[in-house]
């Protein structure tokens, strides 16, 4: 599948459970009600793996990197880091109840 590849799929993850989406020029993120993150990318090889995320509360997709806000307030950033745009390891935006 070249275009519209659904890279990250799981039986319990589907659009029906999506509570938020974020799109960039190259792909789409979806946040599910149970805190998982779906990643749909134009080129499957560029998609990011968020299968380990279970407590996401917000998402934001970029062209080459993406960010996920976790419930405790930390920010998980994955993708291209050539400009240190993924250096968010020490961030804490505040917990989301």
């Amino acid at each position: 599948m070249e275009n519209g590849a659904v890279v990250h799929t799981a039986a319990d993850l589907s659009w029906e459970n999506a509570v938020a989406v974020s799109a960039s020029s190259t792909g789409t993120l979806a946040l599910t009600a149970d805190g998982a993150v779906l990643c749909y990318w134009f080129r499957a090889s560029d998609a990011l793996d968020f299968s380990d995320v279970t407590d996401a509360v917000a998402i934001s997709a970029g062209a080459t990197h993406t960010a996920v806000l976790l419930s405790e307030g930390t920010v998980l950033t994955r993708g291209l880091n050539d400009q240190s745009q993924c250096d968010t390891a020490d961030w804490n935006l505040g917990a989301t109840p």
Partner: protein
Amino acid sequence: MSETENRTLQALPKLSASSWWDGSFAEGLETYLSDQMPGRDTILLGSSRILGLFDATTDEERILNTGMVEKLDEMVGGSEEVTAEAERTPTPVPETPTPAPSDVAAEAEDEDTPAPSTVIPTETPAADTPLPADTPQPVDPQVADTSIVRQFSLIRTDGSLYTQFQFGQNAIEDTAKALNLYRDAVPEDGSVVFTYIPYSMDANLWLLNTDSYIGWMSDVEPTLQANVKEGVYVFSTVNELNEHMQAGEACFYKTDHHWPGLGAFYVQWLMMHTFGVPSIAYEDFEYTVHEDFAGSITGEARSLAGRRDLVDRLEAPTPLAPARAFVYRNLNELVKEVRFMEPERKVYNVFLRGYSDARDRAAAIARQITGEEDETLAVNRMLGIPEERAEETDPLLTARERVPRGKLAVGFHHTVGLKDDGTVLAAGRNDEGQCDVSGWTGVTAVACGVYHTVGLKATAPWSPRAATTRVSATSAAGPAWWPWPARTTTPWRFFPTAPCLPPAISPLRNSPAGRTSSVFPRADAEPWASAPTAASSVPTHPCAGRIWPVRWLRTCPPVIAWL
């Protein structure tokens, strides 16, 4: 539990759609204030003032017992035997201090025990109009409020003031306490709106003596505003109506203690526009007109027969939840009544509740405004009650609503996060200054463009009720070559959104069409400005410093605004 009263004390009432509509929230809140608060009597006094504004009791005796009828009789000659000459020439009104509407309402709260008042009538009548010896003096014996600080006065033609009511520090503080308690009782993103409504007797004192008075003024409201919490808004009805009264508009009845539609309309117009929600025009309301309305007071007094010069024209507009008619008594047929309020109601929300199907009408409007089909959800949204939605709706909807908005944003090569304290973090490329957010404070949402970052500041928490939301300013960081509109000095005032939109920043990502543009939500259908095809096209932001109207819409289209 109260040991002295041997009963369970009232818990803080839960605000819900049903409790709002039927008035039980307000009533329960008053009981709660009475039961739970230290110094409750003092606070309750202030609370009564507030509740009194919405207590449109249908028991005319409560009003009649205040002595207004006697005053009215004095106005017009005090007798049913009225001369033809008097019919043509209104008798000047004696300059007699009258109880404030809040005091009247306070009495109505308990007929057996008239509520004390800290609103002290003036002791300085016009020199040429001595006070009658038996003029009521509603001075609160329990509050030695001698520190007079603010007043409500009529303005004489020579510019001097004829003070009608003086408000002492105690009165201001008591009212502020009660308002603040109301603020605490409503949801965090809720608000409390308060205004003193001048008594019609004061209005008539002016309007029936225009050769003596040219206006009125009050400096009470600003003082009260300074004593209340954020989220409490005090409006000055007195000052708002001044111009309209001077223009001869019928903002008050001559013959009735209720408000005519026009006076109420102007005040609600002020309130709604202050919150960025325009009212429809007065002419656009559905309304009923009676040309021979003599007023409930004069009808009871039976003293105005033949005084056609004082007969009012009754106009009953139909606002959000319509209130269509008043207690109406024809001069000669007192039995002819059209009940405005439901007789069993005690507490009355002026603009939200009216006749028997008001709930259905209001719910329909709520559905229209919010786009929510479910009545309860629609009303809850209007009232800003997310908790109730969580209890009654699909967990998925709840989860969607709980997604933080504007907390996290990703640009082309940078990442931005909003902290709970309103400051902003940024990481990544900063060639154009898109990560220069170190000085940002008070931000409520962030968004990224390819080369820029936008933060939104809100003066009030976002609420599903657009009426209570005001987003006042943005800050922006980004490339110097971009024609930022006075990026450091000009506040932009954005009013968000139709009420069903999520917090105003939600669609604030770049639009698909513009790499350096931002999308702001707006409930209006027109774009704010043209696209920035050239730097010169947007030398200043067209919204700078302006208050933009927001319309209620059936749907909630986010509309593009270009930086």
